[in-house]
C-alpha cells in the first residue's frame, strides 16, 4: 500500500521525528493533565500531557500553556499527535474549552487523512479528553455538574463487541453517533473496531446491528453471507484396537532388548520420533547415521525384529 498522506502530514511527521524547534515531542514532568490512549499491543499508543497557568481562585479559568506528546505508532499517528499539540497551543484554551477540538479539526489541520487512518486523529481527541478528565480530578472540578459526560464508565462496563480492540457497545454507539459513521468500513477506519479478526461485523449484536440501531435498518445492497466457521483442529487419528501405551511399551522393550544392542555393535542407535498406530517413525543416531546403508539397515533389521517380537503390522519410516 503506497502512502496516500497529504504533503502537510508528511512534513509534520518529518519535523516531529527530527525534533525541529517548535514541535511538541516530549512529556511534561508533573503535568496538570495527563491522558493516554491506545496500547502497544493494538499498534498505536499516545501519552498526552499539558500544563496550565493556574487561576488563583477559579480552576475553570486555568489556561493551557504547554502541550506535549509521546507516541508509538505510524506516520499519521505521530503527525496527529503533533497536530493536536499545535492546535492547543495556537489557541488560548481552558481545559474545558480545549474539548471543542475534535478529531475533525486534527484531520483538517493535516490536510486530510486516508480513510483507514482516521483512527489516528480519533486517538488524539481521546487522549485529550482523558487528560482533561485528569486535570478536573486534580483541580477538584466536577465535570458532570458542568454537564460534561466523560464516558469514563463505558469502556469498563457494557457488552464487549470488538474483542480484538476491546471496544464495548456503549462506546461504539456513542462514537457511531459522534463521528457520523455510516458503514462498517468507516467504523474500522475511525476507531479500528472490526479491523482485525472481523468476526464482529455481521454476527447478532455486531457492528452491522449497532449501525442499524443508531441509524435505522439500511436496505441491504449486498447479500450477506453468514460468518464462516473457523477451521477446526484436527481430530485425533483412529487408534489401533490395543492400548497405544501398551504397544509403545512393547516396542521400547523390543528395541532395548534386541535392536539397540545390535546397532550398538556398530556404535549406533535408534531414536523413536513418533509412533502412530502401527507406524513407527524413527531416526538412526550415532555411527549408523553416516552409513550409506542406514535406510536399509532400519528397514530390514528393525522392522523385521519388531514385526516378530511385537506385531506383524508394524511399519518403519525413517525420517
Amino acid at each position, binding site marked *: 500500500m503506497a502512502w496516500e498522506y497529504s504533503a502537510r502530514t508528511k512534513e509534520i511527521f518529518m519535523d516531529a521525528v527530527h*525534533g525541529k524547534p517548535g514541535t511538541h515531542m516530549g512529556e511534561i514532568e508533573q503535568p496538570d493533565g495527563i491522558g493516554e490512549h491506545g496500547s502497544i499491543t493494538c*499498534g498505536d499508543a499516545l501519552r498526552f500531557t499539558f500544563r496550565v497557568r493556574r487561576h488563583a481562585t477559579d480552576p475553570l479559568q486555568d489556561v493551557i500553556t504547554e502541550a506535549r506528546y509521546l507516541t508509538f505508532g505510524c*506516520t499519521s499517528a505521530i503527525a496527529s499527535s503533533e497536530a493536536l499539540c499545535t492546535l492547543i497551543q495556537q489557541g488560548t484554551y481552558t481545559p474545558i474549552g480545549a474539548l471543542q477540538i475534535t478529531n475533525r479539526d486534527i484531520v483538517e489541520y493535516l490536510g486530510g487523512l486516508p480513510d483507514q487512518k482516521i483512527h489516528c486523529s480519533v486517538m488524539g481527541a481521546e487522549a485529550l479528553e482523558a487528560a482533561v478528565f485528569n486535570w478536573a480530578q486534580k483541580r477538584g472540578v466536577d465535570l458532570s455538574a458542568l454537564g460534561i459526560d466523560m464516558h469514563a464508565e463505558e469502556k469498563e462496563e457494557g457488552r464487549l463487541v470488538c474483542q480484538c480492540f476491546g471496544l464495548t457497545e456503549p462506546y461504539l454507539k456513542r462514537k457511531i453517533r459522534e463521528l457520523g459513521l455510516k458503514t462498517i468500513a468507516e467504523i474500522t477506519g475511525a476507531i479500528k473496531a472490526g479491523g482485525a479478526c472481523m468476526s464482529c461485523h455481521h454476527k447478532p449484536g455486531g457492528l452491522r446491528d449497532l449501525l442499524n440501531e443508531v441509524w435505522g435498518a439500511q436496505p441491504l445492497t449486498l447479500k450477506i453471507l453468514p460468518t464462516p466457521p473457523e477451521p*477446526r483442529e484436527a481430530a485425533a*487419528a483412529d487408534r489401533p484396537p490395543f492400548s497405544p501405551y501398551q504397544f509403545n511399551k512393547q516396542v521400547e522393550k523390543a528395541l532395548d532388548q534386541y535392536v539397540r544392542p545390535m546397532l550398538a555393535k556398530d556404535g549406533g542407535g535408534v531414536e523413536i520420533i513418533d509412533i502412530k498406530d502401527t507406524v513407527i517413525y524413527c531416526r538412526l543416531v550415532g555411527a549408523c547415521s553416516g552409513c550409506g546403508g542406514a535406510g536399509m539397515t532400519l528397514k530390514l533389521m528393525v522392522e523385521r525384529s519388531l514385526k516378530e517380537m511385537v506385531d506383524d503390522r508394524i511399519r518403519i*519410516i525413517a525420517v
Partner: protein
Amino acid sequence: MRTIYLDNNATTAVAPEVREAMEAYFAAEYFNPSSAYDRASPAAQAIKRGRETLAHFLGGVDPSEILFTSCATESLNTALYGAVRANPGRRHVVTTAVEHPAVYEVCKDLARSGLEVTFLPVDRAGNLDLRTFIQALRPDTLIAAVMHANNETGVIFPVGQLARVTKDTDPAILFLTDATQTAGKLPLDLRGSLAHVDLLAFSGHKLHAPKGVGALFVRRGTPIRPFMIGGHQEGGRRAGTENVPYIAALTRAVELAQTDHEAVETRVRHLRDRLEAGLLAGIPCVEVNGQGAPRIPNTCNLAVHFIEGEGMLYQLNEHGICASSGSACTSGSLEPSHVLRAMQVPFTAVHGSIRLSLGRYNTDEDVDRMLEVFPRIVANLRRLSPYWDPAHERPRPEAEAMMQGTAQ
C-alpha cells in the same frame, strides 16, 4: 537520489538480458503458438525450449511436468483446488501457520467449504516440529502444503524430508511446496533432495523476470483437475493462449539463475550478514526474526522493539531506500503479520518489524548507506515513543518488563 532497493522478496528488477529475450515476441514473433503455419513456429519453439529449460532447472524432470501460469498465486490455487476436486474422498489438509496468503487464504477457504485444515505452529525461531507434522498426517489427509522458505523471515523448511516422510506414510497424500522465495536461490532438485514433492510452484518476478508469469511443476501421475479450462494449451491442464514473451522472459531468467546463482548468493549472503551484524551492533533492543533457524541468504527480518514499522519505512523512503514491514499499518488489515504472530514475536516488537531483502544488484555501498541511516531513524522514533528512555538508550523500566509478552 539513487534508489537503494532492499525489497527483493517483494519483487526484483527485470534483468536487461531478460528484457532483451522477450522483446522479439512483442514484435516480429507475435503469432499464436497454436497456429498451424510456419510463421507461428518460433513462438511454439520458445515455449518448448522454455519448458525444457525449466525441466532442467528443476533437476532434470520431464518437460511435460511443467505448466506455465500467470504467477505463483495461480500455480498454488491450481494445485490446491485442483487436488481437492480430483480427490473427493479425502477431506483433510495439512499446512503451516506461516504460509504466504496464496496458500494460507486458500486453505482457510477450503476449511469454509467443509474440509478440515491443520495449521501447524512454528517455534520462536520459525521452525516446524517434525513430530507435530507426523502427528498431523491422517488416513484422510489429501495434501500437505509446506512452503520452501518463508517470504517474510527467509526461514527454510526441510521440505525434502517432510515430503519423504509424507510419501512413506501414505503415497496417496500429495505434497505441495511454494518455492517462490527459493527458486534461483536454493537448488530445486526434484529428482534428488525433493524427489518426493508432487507439486512445486514459483513465479518469475522474484528472479528478475517480469510480473505476470509463473510455473507449476506437477509430477507425472499426480491427480489434479485443471483450474482454468477452455483450451488444449499446457496439455489441457491450463487453458488460455500462452503468454509467449513472458514465458521467454522466465526462461532467460532461469538460465541466468543457473549460470551464476552460486556466485551471486555468496556475494548476497556476505552483504546480508554484514548488514545484519552492523544493525544488531548499532541499535539496542533489536532481534533477528528467524535467528537460529536455517535461512535463505538474502533476507534479514528485524524486530525493533517499541516503535512502529511504518514510520521507519517512511523515513527510509525519504532516503530513497525501499524496504517493507509486517506492521499492521502497512497492511490492509489492522493486524500485524500472521507470520510474526505465529512465531510469538513479543508484542513490543511485532508492530516494529522490518524486512530487508537483498538481491543480485545490491552493493557494499547500499549496505553502508543503510548502516549509516537506519540507527538514526530508529533513534528518531524512539525519542517519540512513550516506552523508551532516550537519555539512557534503553526501554523505560515498566516497558522492559513487557518485552517477554507475546501478541495473541
